[in-house]
Structure formats: structure tokens, C-alpha cells
């Protein structure tokens, strides 16, 4: 499957869409990093949780790694390249497996760049405003690694959902509506369920401790479970459905 994964990574690298995603990610992280770091009242930036909100701003890159994962699948159905792809690799599970791996690898790249930049912006903003850092050692490591891991796993979630839905617009609209509306409503009104959504599990994984959130380890486990469930559903449906 290494060969197929190489092919999938080349698919990402060889279109300008991916370049657009990278610039979109950078723009969003810079914008929200500066807004949160400079405009938030100093009194609201004192607790560790407050500062996580600024320092983990790179988690926004998860939107873009999910989109990269989605495009790896829906782009092929939209332009028909799924046919040559399956002709070259008739075992479809290998194709979807390679896309999942490529989605995670792309997600790691998005996460490292996005959170590296986001953390740096947040850190510089706090330092420039003379606000003492409330996070230390392991807590900072958790913010960095948890955010990168969360962003990386969103890449695989994008692949899984797209393999189930196949339609590009449907997948993207559905994922954005889920991530920005449904998850927030669920967490606000039914937190015992809302905390099990991928987005809130991702927050837990990055060390957030807001009421009702899972522990970091449990958050990581729930996020991985989402990836596994969506990937298995995507694999099963892809194996059964005709391609035209």
C-alpha cells in the first residue's frame, strides 16, 4: 500500500487546489491567532484554559486537513479519475486505505505548520502584552501534540465521510454544518453526548478542560474511534458500489 499512498500524495501535490487549502489555512490561523492574541481582554487571558484558546488556534487547520481528505475522494468521483484509479488498483480497500494514510500524512503537515504558526503567534502576543504564561511543561506539550494529532485525524475523517457520501458539495457542506453548528449545539444543550463529537473530542485531546469535556486520553480515543468507524463504513460502501 506504500505505492498507492505515494500515488495519493502526488494527487494532492499535483493540483492547485491543495495550494489554495494551504494558503487558506495559513490565512485563517494568522487572522484568528492575531484576533485572539491581541484583542482578547488581558483579564480573560490569565487562566491555563484561556491561554489554550490562544495557543491552540492551529486546530483551525483541521478544517483544511479535512477538506484535503474530502477532495482526495470526491475529486476522483467528480472528475472520473476514480475509474483509472480502480483499474490500476482493483482492490478498492487498498485505494481507500492509501487515501486514509495520505489524509493523515497531509493532516500532520497541516497540523505542524498550522499549530506551529498559531502557537508562535499566540506566544508572541502574550509575551508582547506582558501576560505571564500560565501553561508549563507537559501542558504545553499536550497543546502542541494534541492539536497536531487532532488536525491529522481530521484528514482521515474527511476521507471516511467522503467515501460514504462521494458527492463533493454534499460532503463539504455536511462536514462544515456538522463541525460549526451541530457539534456546538449538541455540546451546548446535551454536553454528555456533545462531548463525544469529533470536534469536542479534539478539544479534549489538546488539553482543554472546560466542563463536561472528556480527559485528553479519552478524547484521543473517541477521535480515533470516529476515524475507525467512518473508515470502515467508507471501505464497506466503496467495495459494494458500482462506479460509473
Amino acid at each position: 500500500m506504500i505505492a498507492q499512498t505515494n500515488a495519493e500524495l502526488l494527487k494532492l501535490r499535483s493540483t492547485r487546489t491543495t495550494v489554495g487549502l494551504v494558503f487558506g489555512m495559513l490565512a485563517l490561523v494568522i487572522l484568528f491567532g492575531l484576533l485572539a492574541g491581541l484583542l482578547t481582554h488581558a483579564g480573560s487571558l490569565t487562566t491555563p484554559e484561556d491561554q489554550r484558546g490562544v495557543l491552540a488556534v492551529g486546530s483551525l487547520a483541521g478544517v483544511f486537513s479535512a477538506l484535503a481528505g474530502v477532495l482526495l475522494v470526491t475529486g476522483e468521483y467528480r472528475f472520473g479519475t476514480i475509474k483509472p484509479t480502480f483499474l490500476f488498483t482493483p482492490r478498492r480497500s487498498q485505494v481507500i486505505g492509501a487515501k486514509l494514510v495520505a489524509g493523515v500524512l497531509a493532516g500532520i503537515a497541516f497540523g505542524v505548520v498550522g499549530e506551529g504558526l498559531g502557537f508562535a503567534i499566540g506566544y508572541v502576543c502574550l509575551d508582547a502584552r506582558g501576560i505571564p504564561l500560565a501553561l508549563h511543561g507537559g501542558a504545553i506539550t499536550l497543546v502542541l501534540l494534541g492539536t497536531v494529532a487532532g488536525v491529522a485525524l481530521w484528514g482521515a475523517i474527511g476521507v471516511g465521510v467522503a467515501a460514504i457520501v462521494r458527492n463533493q458539495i454534499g460532503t463539504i457542506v455536511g462536514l462544515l454544518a456538522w463541525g460549526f453548528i451541530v457539534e456546538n449545539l449538541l455540546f451546548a444543550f446535551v454536553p454528555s453526548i456533545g462531548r463525544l463529537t469529533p470536534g469536542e473530542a479534539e478539544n479534549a485531546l489538546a488539553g482543554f478542560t472546560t466542563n463536561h469535556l472528556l480527559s485528553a486520553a479519552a478524547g484521543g480515543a473517541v477521535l480515533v474511534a470516529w476515524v475507525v468507524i467512518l473508515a470502515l463504513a467508507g471501505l464497506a460502501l466503496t467495495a459494494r458500489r458500482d462506479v460509473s
Partner: protein
Amino acid sequence: MPVVLSEGLTKRFGGLTAVDDLSFVLEAGTITGFLGPNGAGKTTTLRMLLGLAAPTGGRALIFDQPYSQLADAARRVGAVLEATDFHPGRTGRDHLRTLSRAVELPDSRVDKVLGLVELTDAAGRRVKGYSLGMRQRLGLASALLGDPELLVLDEPANGLDPEGVRWLRDFLRTFASEGRTVLISSHVLAEVAQTVDQVLIISRGRLVVETSLESLTARVGGSVRVRSPQQTALAEALRREQIETTTTNDHALLAHGTTSDRVGDVAFAAGVPVHELVAEGSSLEEVFLELTSETQP
């Protein structure tokens, strides 16, 4: 071992039977034309042969295996199902590389097939700037990447200029002369008549004819166009001689399965004046149309 074996292959979409109990065999070293009007089920059949669609009934084997079980499929079978299956923003060379890398073919092979289809100069350009003919050739290049033993091409002549059609014909001839096998579909018989050894003609999902091109050509009786001021009398005289006629749109008679000599003789014997007498050219296409319309309700 046949290269391709289709046994009772059937595909139904809801109540519609797209492919109906289709059986045929392709032997190595042959070029087969898979013919039928648009919507006859050609592409659906090819999709089932290539593992892209599951048959409702029957089975399709390639080298004795279902395509999905074929080890090293890309090195044994090359196929193009649609000339438009490209990401418009990707260059021709990158399109081929995304495929070659998946089966660990070297980049040098990509350059080789680009040269074969004469796309080397355009390989660095994005596919959205390609003409339909260039896309056809890029598709063919992807099918040739694995240096396959069997080539399956769906309507490969669409969008090719006459020179391109000739180039494709020569290319396929050389390919088959090396003992390799070709299956090409088309809705225009004339497009492939000079290329193929045998034809499979389907209509409404059913196999109508499976024959060599020679025996199909032998069916062509030809027809004769004749005009006379006493058209009815002439038609009557021809009918007495067992010659069928039909009337054309411009009120001439078309005498089927006969020669202009014979029609002239019959007219003379009947004392009917003739104002026009023309033997119609090759009517292979008419035979094709006749065969494919036979099963229409």
C-alpha cells in the same frame, strides 16, 4: 484460455435491463469491435468486464479471473472508459504519474508512453487546455503504461481527426500483431471497420451478431437507386423478380440486394423508362443499422 470470457452477463438497473444475457469469447491476438448504438449497453458491459460494476447475473473473466481478483491487473490489462476522466488542473504527465506510482512503474515509462501517443510536448500543460483528441491520446497513454496484453478502449476514435483515426488504426494493428488483444467499442461501424477482425454487435443489451468482419461484409448486398416516370410499374416489375424496393425521401426507388445491371434489365424487359440508375456505395453502415434496429419493438 480465452483472454476475455463473458458468460450470461446481465445488468439490471431497477426495472431496466441494460445488458441481457451477454456471452462471448475473445481470443488472443484479435481486434474485436464492440458495436451498437448509443445506449445499447456497451459501456455497462465494459464496466462489468473491468470490475467497476457488479453484474446482476452471469460472470465476466479476464485471463480466467474476475478483474478484481487479477494479480497485477495494470500490467496485464490497459483500459480507457471515458476520454474525459482527468482532473482538469493536473498536467498530463502528473495524471500518468499518479497512476504509474500506484503500481510502481518508473517515471521513465510515463515518458515512454507520452512519446508513443505523441504528447511529449504537451505533457507539462494542464489537461483543461487539451483538445478532445489530446485527451483521447492521454487516455490511451494511461492504458499503455503497464505494457498490457489486453487493451480495452471505449469509443477511442471520438474526437480524433482523420489522421488520428489512421494513427490509432495502425497502432492497434501493430499491437495485435504482437499477439496481444484489443477490444474497442464504437457506435459507428465505419470508424472501426478497417481496424477490427471481428465484430460483436449489441442492441438493447442483447448480442445481435458475433461474426468476422468478412462475413459481415458478405451480407452487404448493396442497393440500387433508380428513378422512373412510371415508378409504380417499375416497383411492380422488380417485385415480380423477387427484388425488394423501398421509396426514398426524394421519391426514388431503392432496390435492395441487387445490381444496377439487373435493375436496368428488368426495367428494359418491362418497357419502363429509367431516368436515373445508380449503384449505392458501401452499405456496411446500413447493414449495421438494420441489425441493431431488428430488436427494436
